[in-house]
Structure formats: structure tokens, C-alpha cells
């Protein structure tokens, strides 16, 4: 949200635009009987206008938890225990219930992981688009219906499917319908939480190019969450790699693919086959993700890391900018590592 004063400042002094979303030191704990599980542990990142930030990592690394924390839709026992999430000049974590209800979907909408479960089975697709438009007081009933039909058009579903129930649509169409709902209020930021995971490869490809197309037309920013790095190649501007509740590497998509610095990112890269290059044996990453009830001391990746030195198990590596706009949390690039 550019307020008049901030716009003035930009034009006068030519400062870089403020980021749309600014996450600082976000902590989310799952309160279990055996103690808090630190699912998100000090995550910070920015998303600028029109940018696509890819957030990748293994299952259970906390990436979906980050997404849900941004809209404050975490279910108990998950609790946001600290940090700041600024959207424009407002802190989402400080919002009252009313403010939050107005903020949700209007400013940040979300495409859920499984379209199969994201649509209410007993309400027509049309009504599920209309209700969000009406709830935010954007339009009356008739106009909302018109807008809902237009939205179906935009995502490539026939307008007359407005009165169809979710079970009458194919998997791909359902995911398109979910995207149509996310577009309903034209939000500046969309969170996409594994939007294509449940679909077969062909439909996956279609949906991805659709998202790309819509993004170019409408210019919204995306936080794209996936465990499949190959999906991020074409779409993302920057990529953040998450491991055990923390961001371990953050850089432009190009840098992540061409020069991954963190051993974990390097491992992820060698976990999927290249279509064009030479056939190589996949190396992958040995071991399993850590138990976040008792995360490993020091660098959390150390039990699975080939480059580990004793001192790395004691000291936590900070996320530092080792090259221009290339951030890594790894001792191989810190003073500790150099001295060891």
C-alpha cells in the first residue's frame, strides 16, 4: 500500500520502493504435550511488488506454516510466538479481528494445496466466489455473480459452470476454480501453497503457465511454496530455501540454480534429474529431516552435512549476504568456518 506521503518520498528522492510484505524473525510453535515444536524459527524475508518469491524445502520444513501464519489462519496447537509481518505499513500480527477479516483475501489471498479439499462440497463454485466478494462489500449480489462468471472465464472455465458443484469438476478445473476464488478481489499478493502437487504432470504444466499468464496480466506478487524446485525455475524472481524451520539460503532464482552455496541447496539440486543435461546419478541428501522437538544444536543441517566440523555443531550460522543479494546461513562462508 503506497500512502500519498510514501509516493511523494519515492518520487522526490528516488528511494527504492518499499517491499509489499516484510517478514521479520517469525516464530511459530506447535504446542505439543512433549514440548513446543519449533516449526518456524526466526524466518525473515521481503516480497516486492510484482515479485515471485519461491519458498522451497522438504516436507515438514515449515513452509506451509509460514504461509498460514501470514494470514493468521493457523489452527491450534500452532501459535505464532514472535516476529513481525508487515504488509505495507500495518503489522498483520497486531491486527484486531475486524481488521484481520477485512485484510484477508482483499490484500493477501491464498491458493490451497489440494483443490479437492479446498472447495466446500455442498456449495456451488459460483457461490464460493460470490460470497467472498459480497463479504468484503465490494459489490451487490447481481454484480458479484457477473464478476464470478468473468473470473471463471479468466481461468478458462466455461461461464455456465457457475452453478456446478465441486464434485462435478475435474481435478484441474477445481484447481482453476480455486485460483479464480483467489483472484476475486484482485489482491496485490497471492500465496500459493503447492498449487499443483495433487495434479498430474500435464495439468500441472497447464496450471503453471496459467498462473504465469495471469501474473503478467494482473501484476500481483506471489509467494510460491513448493517442495519441487523444478517448478520454480520459470516462475520465480527469487528463491528462499527452508530447512528445519529456518531459511538457509536466499538468492535470485538464477543464482540458486547456477551457483547454490548451501550444502543443503546443493543436495536439493542433485535430487532431481536434469532433462537437458547429461545423465548423472542422483546423489540426493543422506539422512532424514530433524525432529523439531529437539533440533540439532549449532547448524541444524550438521548431522546430514559432509562439510561438518566439530565447531559447527555448537555455533548457529547467521544468514549473511555473502555475495550481492545472495544470502546463506552456513559456516563455510563465515569467520567460524574460515578459522576452523
Amino acid at each position, binding site marked *: 500500500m503506497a500512502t500519498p506521503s510514501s509516493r511523494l518520498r519515492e518520487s522526490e528522492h528516488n528511494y527504492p520502493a518499499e517491499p509489499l510484505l516484510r517478514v521479520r524473525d517469525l516464530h511459530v510453535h506447535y504446542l505439543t504435550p512433549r514440548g513446543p515444536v519449533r516449526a518456524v524459527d526466526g524466518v525473515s524475508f521481503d516480497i516486492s511488488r510484482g515479485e515471485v518469491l519461491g519458498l522451497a524445502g522438504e516436507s515438514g520444513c515449515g513452509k506451509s506454516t509460514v504461509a498460514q501464519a501470514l494470514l493468521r489462519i493457523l*489452527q491450534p496447537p500452532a501459535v505464532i510466538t514472535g516476529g513481525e509481518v508487515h504488509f505495507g505499513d500495518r503489522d498483520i500480527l497486531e491486527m484486531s479481528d475486524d481488521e484481520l477479516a477485512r485484510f484477508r483475501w482483499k490484500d493477501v489471498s491464498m491458493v*490451497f494445496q489440494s483443490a479437492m479439499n*479446498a472447495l466446500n462440497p455442498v*456449495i456451488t463454485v459460483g457461490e464460493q466466489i460470490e460470497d467472498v466478494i459480497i463479504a468484503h462489500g465490494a459489490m451487490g449480489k447481481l454484480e458479484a455473480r457477473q464478476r464470478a462468471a468473468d473470473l471463471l472465464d479468466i481461468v478458462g472455465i466455461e461461464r455456465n459452470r457457475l452453478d456446478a458443484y465441486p464434485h462435478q469438476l475435474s481435478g484441474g478445473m477445481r484447481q482453476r476454480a480455486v485460483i479464480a476464488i483467489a483472484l476475486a478481489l484482485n489482491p496485490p499478493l497471492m500465496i500459493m501453497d503447492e498449487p499443483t502437487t495433487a495434479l498430474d504432470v500435464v495439468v500441472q504444466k497447464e496450471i503453471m503457465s496459467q498462473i504465469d499468464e495471469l501474473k503478467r496480466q494482473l501484476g500481483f506478487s506471489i509467494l510460491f511454496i513448493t517442495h519441487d524446485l523444478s517448478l520454480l525455475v520459470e516462475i520465480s524472481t527469487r528463491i528462499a530455501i527452508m530447512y528445519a524451520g529456518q531459511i538457509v539460503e536466499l538468492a535470485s532464482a538464477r543464482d540458486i540454480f547456477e551457483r547454490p552455496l548451501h550444502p543443503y541447496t546443493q543436495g536439493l539440486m542433485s535430487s532431481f534429474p536434469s532433462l537437458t543435461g547429461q545423465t548423472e546419478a542422483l546423489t540426493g541428501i543422506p539422512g532424514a529431516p530433524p525432529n523439531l522437538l529437539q533440533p540439532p544444536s549449532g547448524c541444524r543441517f550438521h548431522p546430514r552435512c559432509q562439510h561438518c566440523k566439530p565447531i559447527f555443531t555448537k555455533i548457529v550460522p547467521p544468514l549473511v549476504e555473502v555475495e550481492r543479494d545472495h544470502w546463506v546461513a552456513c559456516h563455510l562462508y563465515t569467520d567460524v568456518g574460515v578459522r576452523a
Partner: protein
Amino acid sequence: MNFILRRLGFYLVAAWASLTLNFFLPRFMPGDPATALFARMQGRIQAEQIQTMREAYGVSDDPLWQQYGAYLVNIFRGDFGVSISYFPTAVFDVVRSGFVWTIVLVGVSLVLSVLIGNILGVMGAWKRNGFVDSVLPPLLMFVGSFPFFFLASVALFFLSFEWGWFPLRHAYTDGLAPAWSWEFIRSVLYHLVLPAATSIVVAIGGWMLGMRNTMISTLAEDYVTMAEAKGLSQRRVMFNYAARNALLPNLTAFGMALGFVISGNLLVEIVFAYPGLGYQLLTAVNNLDYPLMQGLFLMITFAVLAANLVVDLLYVRLDPRVRAG
């Protein structure tokens, strides 16, 4: 549409089957009501009297299939024979008057207990471990675990007999003529409070727990989370997204429970001397009024079938996924 037609066909067959069973079962039993009565009287009645009674009971020596045909024809004409205990009133008329009162009592208590129970269940699940959720289920289950006749008797003893807040018996003040007058309706409602309230208090806990449990699993569904992310009002998320879906399995349970509700009402009617089907059944059994018993069984069966048909139609209305099949 297709689905509804198929269901209708099913209920038609079920109705025919119950009619047929109702006819054959008593006839497969050894002896007949008249001979049983004769045996009890130990020879104090004459053979001619037995013959007259056999005729009154509709017992004849015609071939079974002929009797069956005549029986079906009679049923369609609404002729269930003549009641013995209410002689010479026709069974049909006796059952009809009882049916009205049972429907009033069962209808009111069932609708209210299901409605209140489900709403409490929704609220309990919504504010998990809140006041409604932590206090009501154990309390209601405690009350509901008492034998019903005990609870009803205690209520009757204190509220009606000792303190005189409510009438002791019957569906309306004795001597009042049934009419659509305010006075009569008020009397009916006044007599209805205690029997309805006791059966509601007993039943409500089960409905609440059932709804609460399905609601909790529904609340974890993605579409509920998404509805919340959409910034919809709490009411809409709670009812149109969560409760609307949680209702479906409970509706099935409701349909299955209906069969027991009408027969379960028997105790209420007996304790409060409420002139419904249950009370009549007791009278019929006490007086060995076989025609009335048969008529009552048939009526109860039909009522349960009709109620289940309504539940089926409701299900079609509420779950679009059923319509397609």
C-alpha cells in the same frame, strides 16, 4: 430425480412387506385370540360366544390367500376392524386420535432436541474447551443416563404433584372440547411442557456429542480454513462451511434413530398418561385387543417409513453429491 424415484420405490416395497408381515405373523402363531380368551375364562363362556368373538376378531377359516386379499382391500379402505377395548369404535378412528397426539409430542420433542442439541454441538466444537464444550456434555450425558421412567416420574412427582406447576396427566384439560380455540391450544401446550421437556433433556446430550464430534473433524478441513482466509463472517464459516457439512453424517444417524423414537415415546406417554399411540398400545395389550394392536403396529411402521422418506429427501436437498448418482 432418479434417486428420489428409486427411494420411493424402495419405500413402497417396504410398506408392502410390513403389511404382509403384519398379516401373516399373528396367523402363524398357534391358536387365535378367541381361543386364548376361552382358555383363560376356563369354560365360563359358551361356544356360540366364541364364534361371535372369532367373527369380531376377523378370524375365519377361509383359505389364507383369500383372507390376505380381503385384508389388503380392507386396509386400503382404512378398515382395520373394530377395537375390543374401545368397542364399538373402529380401530382406524382410535389409532387416528392417538396418532395426532403422538405426532404432537414426538414432533415437538424431536425437533427441539435435535435442533438444540446440534446447535450446542456446533458451538461446543467452535469454541473448543470453552464453557459450552466443557460443562454441557458431561452434564447432559449424566442426565441422559438415568432410566427415562425414573426421571419422568421424579419430574412428575415434584413439578406436578408436589408443587402443582404442571398438570398430572392427559393432553388437555378434561372436559374441554377439542377446537381451534386459544383456550384449547393453550391447554394442549401446557400439558405438553413436562412430557416434552423430559424427553428433550434426555435426548439432547446424544445429539450434541454427535454433532460436536463430526464438527471437530470438519473444522480441520481445508475448505473451512480457506473460508476463514477469505475473511468471511464467523457465522458464515461456522454454519455454511463447517456445520453444513458436519450435518450430513448426523442426518443419517437421525434417520436411523427415528425408528426408536416413536417406540421410545411409549414410556413418556405411559408415565404422563398421554393419549398417544404408546398409551393406546399399553391399553390394547392389557385388554388383549388384537385388532387395535395390529392397527397400532402398522401405524408405527408407516410413521417410521414416512419419517425415513423425509430424511432421505432432506439428504438429497442437503448433499449435492447424492443427486448425481
